[in-house]
């Protein structure tokens, strides 16, 4: 079954033909060619596929594209502000919080949404907010440090 949905992706209003059985991940990656969203487990556990839907972190591998009609979607490509790196992106670079980088886009979006709602979290708050984003390389220490740095600013 095909349908047409209206979806705003990274600030661009689009009308896209989709199939009912498409996930949001498929729409983002295969149809729109936005490479930055990653596929880590296809079970909704690792969080690598996280994008923002109406500002809220969503596991795109578990979300149906059909449900995104009328929604605003932000992928890692849309995190930049006025062509500049988002403060979190810069903080990750500065803190050495990026190793293989596969989990990074999902974590950046999750934390960007989190800080918007909780501008002054404690370290324990951040640690808890990160629990659904798996990283195998960094041990999370520098990621949390980078988030705390941005929240203090």
């Amino acid at each position, binding site marked *: 079954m095909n349908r047409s949905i209206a979806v705003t992706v990274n600030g661009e209003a689009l009308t896209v033909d989709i199939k009912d059985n498409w996930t949001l991940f498929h729409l983002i990656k295969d149809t729109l060619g936005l490479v930055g969203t990653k596929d880590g487990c296809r079970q909704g556990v690792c969080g690598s596929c996280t994008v923002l839907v109406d500002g*809220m*972190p969503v*596991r795109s591998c578990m979300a*149906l594209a059909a449900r995104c009609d009328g929604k605003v979607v932000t992928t890692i490509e849309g995190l930049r502000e006025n062509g500049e790196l988002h403060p979190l992106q810069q903080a990750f670079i500065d803190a050495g919080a990026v190793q293989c980088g596969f989990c990074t886009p999902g974590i950046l979006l*999750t934390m960007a949404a989190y800080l918007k709602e909780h501008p002054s979290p404690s370290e324990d708050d951040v640690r808890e907010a990160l*629990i*659904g984003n798996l990283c195998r390389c960094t041990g999370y220490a520098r990621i949390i440090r980078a988030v705390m740095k941005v929240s203090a600013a």
Partner: protein
Amino acid sequence: MSLPSFEYKAPGTVEEAVTLLAEYGDDAIIVAGGLTVVILLRERLARPSVLISLSDIPELSAITVNGNAIIGATVTHDQVTRSAALAEFAPLMGMACGRVGSPGIRNMGTVGGSVSHGDGASDTAPALLALGAEAVIAGPDGQRTVPLKEFFFGVFDTALEDGEILTALRIPPASPGTQMRFKKYTCTSAEAYAAVTVATALDLTPDGTCRVARIGLGSVAPKPMRAVEAEALLQGNKLTPELIAEAANVAAGETDPPSDGQGTSGYRRDMTRVWVRRLLEDTAGG
């Protein structure tokens, strides 16, 4: 990553949803947050021709507190944790929903989905059981309610009949003086499935006598359960350390835990004893 082919339908009312379900019968699956259904589809464990989404039905995504609390079937765990009304009415709900998976899972997963799936490892079901909740069900013959303690039959087997949809959980008000505690105990990562989940709601008199006791348990039986024998032991009695220990023992004996990645059945029975005891001790002390 791909899912098998299906048609997506998003009715705007419960009646429409029931009608669609009657029309397609076994060829249709109801979907709310999608976390369970998408996995079933991806693994090819189900191949429905139609997915009936409840997301566009406004009344199902509402939390209403008015005498009772009504949690619509598509309310997400995240929404529950944010609800000030529920925090006051039944703090146990926020405690439980706040421990489901991770924030990303809580954004998408629904209370209704968790209950209607009949998963013995649901973390919210024990809390709802301890609150004496009822399942509100819509079907071709109209609406009916089933006390949640009679809703779970067995492994992924519930009181929902063909053509029926769980539309809400209804929680009665707790008597003043009711103390609620919740613990999800995991042996592996903090974000894992539980070895045992315990939810307690005890109505205590000022001198520590238990008027009403409800103990909900998850992950230690084929279905979410109440430790009814332990509850009976506590009811009407003063919460002494000896009684608490005995009740915890009895509760452990009522379980029938599986052996899997979260622990062996023997260990989980032991942990039921430990955590029921700890929650009761905390209740008595606090």
